[in-house]
């Protein structure tokens, strides 16, 4: 999760500068060869790139893990699109991802901009806000499973708020729990992104606005928000990739239930592979998840003009 997190922001900064950019030709210094990169390249190729190629191959194969895999053409893919649970799981994945973005984005922008201010208590509070991000998704899920337990948790002692208290018993509350837990865990990460961005907004802009008599809220909407545009894209891409690959939380909090009401694609893939041993179909779901995440990310980059690396320093 956090892996992809750092990735996008880093990639957006670093790609253009890879290898030999202009103005980096300093003759006279000898340079290391490929040998320095070889061990890492080999290791990474073996444990990440090769499996990725294999999963694409497997998605066109029929395999139960015991006999030899057989070429099956597009059978797995056909099966997927004829499978009502699969279609439902894809919608659920998209729904959870969408809701996650809608809930977390405004929240983390507000918290991030607030935390960018320099006051003593803010530093202390930011340190506390940050804690959920440090915990494993497993720990977070188990913690909330305990806190929200219908018989021993908070709902049992706050009936006025939770009704019968069984939040895992129907689809809408189960989805609400998943969204809430995801928000609880990952808002700190996005807050951090926005905090960094808000700190790098040129002071001059605010000073000019002060002189023009713009109040705090006008400054926020007319200066801070437009300046955060690129960070919004970065943060949203992370949310999309993270949302589509959510797995631990579903496994621990809802087991995809009630029924299949929270069986999102990543969890369905796990069931297909390790519960019903249909490895071909599971591989196809895996490939599909990568494709969906990539397409959504690319569309977002296109729509926002992020790829043109528009400067947010217009008028400076």
């Amino acid at each position, binding site marked *: 999760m956090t892996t992809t997190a750092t990735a996008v922001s880093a990639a957006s900064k670093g790609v253009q500068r890879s290898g030999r950019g202009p103005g980096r030709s300093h003759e006279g210094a000898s340079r290391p060869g490929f040998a320095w990169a070889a061990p890492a390249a080999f290791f990474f190729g073996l444990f990440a790139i090769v499996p990725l190629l294999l999963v694409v191959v497997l998605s066109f194969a029929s395999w139960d893990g015991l006999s030899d895999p057989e070429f099956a053409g597009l059978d797995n893919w056909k099966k997927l699109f004829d499978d009502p649970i699969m279609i439902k799981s894809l919608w659920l994945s998209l729904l959870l991802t969408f809701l996650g973005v809608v809930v977390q984005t405004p929240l983390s922008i507000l918290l991030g901009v*607030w935390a960018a201010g320099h006051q003593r208590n803010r530093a202390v509070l930011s340190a506390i806000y940050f804690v959920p991000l440090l*915990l494993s998704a497993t720990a977070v899920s188990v913690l909330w499973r305990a806190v929200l337990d219908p018989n021993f948790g908070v709902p049992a002692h706050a009936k006025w708020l939770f009704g019968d208290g069984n939040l895992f018993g129907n689809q809408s509350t189960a989805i609400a729990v998943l969204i809430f837990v995801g928000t609880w865990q990952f808002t700190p990460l996005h807050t*951090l992104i926005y905090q960094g961005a808000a700190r790098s907004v040129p002071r001059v802009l605010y000073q000019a606005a002060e002189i023009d008599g713009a109040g705090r809220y006008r400054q926020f909407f007319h200066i801070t928000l437009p300046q955060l545009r690129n960070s919004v894209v970065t943060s949203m891409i992370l949310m999309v990739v993270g949302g589509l690959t959510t797995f631990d939380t579903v496994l621990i909090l809802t087991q995809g239930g009630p029924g299949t009401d929270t069986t999102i694609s990543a969890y369905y893939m796990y069931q297909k592979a390790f519960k019903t041993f249909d490895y071909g179909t599971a591989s196809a779901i895996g490939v599909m998840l990568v494709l969906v995440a990539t397409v959504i990310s690319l569309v977002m980059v296109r729509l926002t003009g992020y790829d043109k690396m528009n400067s947010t320093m217009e008028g400076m």
Partner: protein
Amino acid sequence: MSRRRPNFLAGFGSTVWLLVVGLPLYVMLVATFQNRADYGSNGPFALPEHFTFDNYVNDFNGGFGQYFLNTVIVTLSVVAIVVLLVAPLSYAIVRSRSRVTGLVFRLFLLGLAIPSQAVIVPMFFAISEAGLYDNLIGVILPTAAFAMPVCALILTGVMRDITPELYEAMTMDGATHRRVFFQLVLPLSKSGISTIVVFSALQAWNGFLFPLVLTQSAESKVVTMGLYDFQTEHGVDMPGMLAAVVISMIPILLVYLFARRALVQGLMGVGGK
């Protein structure tokens, strides 16, 4: 920004969020220090009636000592592999002119977009074929591989900031690549190295999917697996379960206390601006 009046709305909002973050942590902590009967009758908000460490002791005797040790082994190994491989890799990416190295860098960028779920099926069979199923090595290798792309990005970012003049000066003195690497690059990338150490350690410590699919027996369980099992088997023992959650958090919180900057930078990727 001159603050003319306190921002009440922001103050209110931040207090609400503090409660949202803090309350479950409070519930967790007070639950772990009381026995099950008290917890059942007094509810999740009450302070412990009979203060006890039994939950922690029971968890440790119930296998968490072993899981903890396994997780430490996995984490240290992952960190070692990542640092040993990524440091020379980043040096090559930043300094090499060869086309192949540029290609390798793109390969790692592609790697950023691969979620571990997507490759778990072939990984499971590859690890089983290699005879590493239910073996910590089988968890260590893929975990290290999937931590590498981000670490490579972080470290190349840091190494790029070393001025070319320094390289030239060293080369003039007739230094070999090896000497340049050990006497110039490594000392100047200390901050980046500590960031990738923290980041890969966090990844390894919190890893779930690889241990879930690639291990089975109690001897090779890591803490996250122990937690998951506890929840499925003794889900009603809230104090015990929450104590297990606390046990799994302790090292991370210690790192957070003592190396907060490295950790935050690790999570931010290429450091805060």
